[in-house]
């Protein structure tokens, strides 16, 4: 299989142009869909803008919705740079949240200053473990990671439902006629700090820090350089003595770990408890899949993911007002997400052609020279 990174041109030009074109076209087709459904697309989009940015509270909500997308998206960048397609974000978020919940429920007596870092680390490990399984299966048994991550998603969700219906169910609701599959509210000192009165929380800052760290890891360290080399050219990396399997496992483990950290932040800062409706989306809000959209939109670059996640967080918040203003269900946003992915991948052919043309007349860009050293 041609390494993923060879199919994408990462020049600065394309970081701006591809998202703009793809986003514009997706909004255009989305507008046609809204129009076909009998609503006014302009009203719909204006309503979404107001819903997402109209007030300090709306803006804060958009940032909060961006949180899980940011964590997952940055993780996706690492995986894809290492040549691994991680569509297991859903399961990794869940496993991260489970690990965090386990820590909080077990050590609820610890002071927040200890409990919160411990819970975050647990989330990181939980998600990383789940991603690592897919990486191990790929490296050791040659199991396609796209397929294994899908199965791991389903298993994680079932496992969460199992725990929430059983040992972790809120003890105060045990006598109720209808049992809700959720834990009790976490102790107040386990809450991440919040910028009251809005819902904006410190987890977003953590997300931005993680994005910067991921950038440093990928472009300023040997490990990151090897991850990218493996993703850029598997065969050449092997001949250069890089343990391809090891770095692919590392890439998807880190990717899962960040998704898990995102899950940890969601329980500690937003929900303050773990709950499920039996589906994956019930808890994650499809962040595992939407994170892929965000990563693509951000040019598969950790720093690009920061603005991209804020944009899609705004989209999600704006979707809530769609139903109110023009009677279009929020499911429209999922459709729009799909369109964005389709247009981003579709636009790559022009980006590639441009890159090929440029490579013929100009010396190779610096990044490619660096990668060629590995050969």
């Amino acid at each position, binding site marked *: *299989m*041609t390494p*993923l990174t060879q*199919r*994408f041109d990462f020049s600065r030009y394309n970081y701006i142009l591809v998202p703009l074109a793809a986003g514009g076209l997706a909004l255009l087709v989305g507008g046609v*869909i809204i129009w076909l*459904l009998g609503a006014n697309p302009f009203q719909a989009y204006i309503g979404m803008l107001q819903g997402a940015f109209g007030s300090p509270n709306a803006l804060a909500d958009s940032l909060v919705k961006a949180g899980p997308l940011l964590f997952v998206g940055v993780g996706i960048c690492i995986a894809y740079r290492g040549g691994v*397609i991680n*569509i297991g974000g859903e399961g990794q978020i869940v496993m991260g949240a489970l690990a965090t919940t386990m820590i909080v429920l077990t050590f609820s007596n610890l002071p927040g200053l200890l409990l919160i870092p411990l819970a975050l680390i647990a989330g990181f490990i939980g998600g990383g473990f789940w991603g690592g399984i897919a990486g191990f*299966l790929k490296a050791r*048994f*040659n*199991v*396609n990671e*796209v*397929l*294994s991550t*899908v*199965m*791991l*998603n*389903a*298993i994680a969700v*079932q*496992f969460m*439902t*199992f725990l929430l*219906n*059983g040992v972790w169910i809120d003890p105060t609701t045990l006598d109720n006629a209808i049992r809700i599959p959720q834990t009790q509210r976490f102790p107040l000192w386990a809450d991440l700090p919040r910028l009251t009165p809005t819902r904006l929380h410190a987890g977003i800052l953590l997300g931005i820090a993680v994005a910067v760290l991921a950038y440093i890891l990928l472009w300023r360290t040997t490990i990151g350089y090897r991850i990218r080399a493996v993703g850029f050219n598997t065969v050449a990396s092997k001949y250069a003595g890089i343990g391809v399997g090891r770095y692919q496992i590392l890439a998807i483990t880190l990717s899962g770990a960040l998704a898990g950290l995102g899950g940890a932040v969601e329980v500690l800062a937003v929900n303050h408890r773990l709950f499920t409706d039996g*589906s994956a*989306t019930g808890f994650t809000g499809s962040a595992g*899949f939407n994170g*892929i*959209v965000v990563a*693509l939109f951000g040019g598969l670059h950790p720093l690009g993911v920061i603005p991209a996640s804020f944009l899609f967080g705004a989209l999600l918040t704006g979707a809530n007002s769609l139903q109110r203003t023009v009677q*279009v*269900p929020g*499911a*429209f*946003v*999922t*459709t*729009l*997400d*799909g*369109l*964005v*992915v*389709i247009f*981003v*991948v*579709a636009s*790559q*052919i022009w980006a590639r052609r441009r890159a090929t043309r440029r490579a013929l007349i100009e010396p190779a860009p610096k990044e490619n020279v660096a990668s060629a050293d590995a050969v």
Partner: protein
Amino acid sequence: MLEQLFAPAVIIGILASGIQLATPYLYASIGEMFSQVSGVLNLGVEGVMLIAAFVAYYVALKTSNLILALALAALAGALMGLLTAFLSVTLKAEQGISGIGIYLFGLGLSDLLFLVLVGTPTAIRGFPELDLPVLSSMPVLGPILFSQNILVYFAFACVPLAWFVLNKTTLGLKVRAVGQTPEAADSLGISVARVRYIAVIVAATMAGIAGASLSIAMFNIFQQNLTSGMGFIAVALVYFGGWRPFRVMLGALLFSMVNALQLWIQTLGIGLPSDIAGMLPYILTIIALIFAARQIVTQPTALTKPFERGE
């Protein structure tokens, strides 16, 4: 408690529902197999199934004409196939990612259309069970095999048909050629793009029928994310089956039987918690994939590789 599971009536029930549950997987994976053998990984099966399932449900709800519903679902699938082929073949897009785009698009659009056009889930009359004369009155085998709805029979008929088309016809040879050595096929005057378009559209049409088999033959209802991962499992089954129709069928049957078993375990209320039982089919698929990966030699060499004609 456990001996309940071995009562003859229960075993027949498990096998019969296993056969029925295999239907959507059969359509979707046999179709997907054509696409993959031609060199295109069509990961958007799930999204195609969802859109087609909605179309079939909606047409059945409005017209009560099941044949029309099935036909339009197949057409919806074919159109999604055209889009997939355009992305994967003409635009040479990264197939793993464009498939996710198709999935999200199908997931969102089917939900959106359902909420706007229907709103509340209303059950419809789907394809009835069709007792085959004589055969269905056979003891044991009758209720398991010959008392199913018509889409179940067609699904199993697709397997030998797919084998025949793939191995004994010129089209099948061309499909395998463009998936194995597109350069050689191209030099012999076979249009790689055209054959791949055909294979991808066939795959998506069958994914469409798979979706319809859910909404107008098995569940007889539509709801958000009706397929809940079936399309992705169908893709996994193609790998498991090593791109051979009968082995794909075997995989589909195995997966569905385990699924039927866990559903019956839940109904009978046997000790095992239902959520843990629910994991079984997925754990089994992962294990199956580990074994299937050993036959990697049979993988179409050009799978996921867009064809670039050399200058």
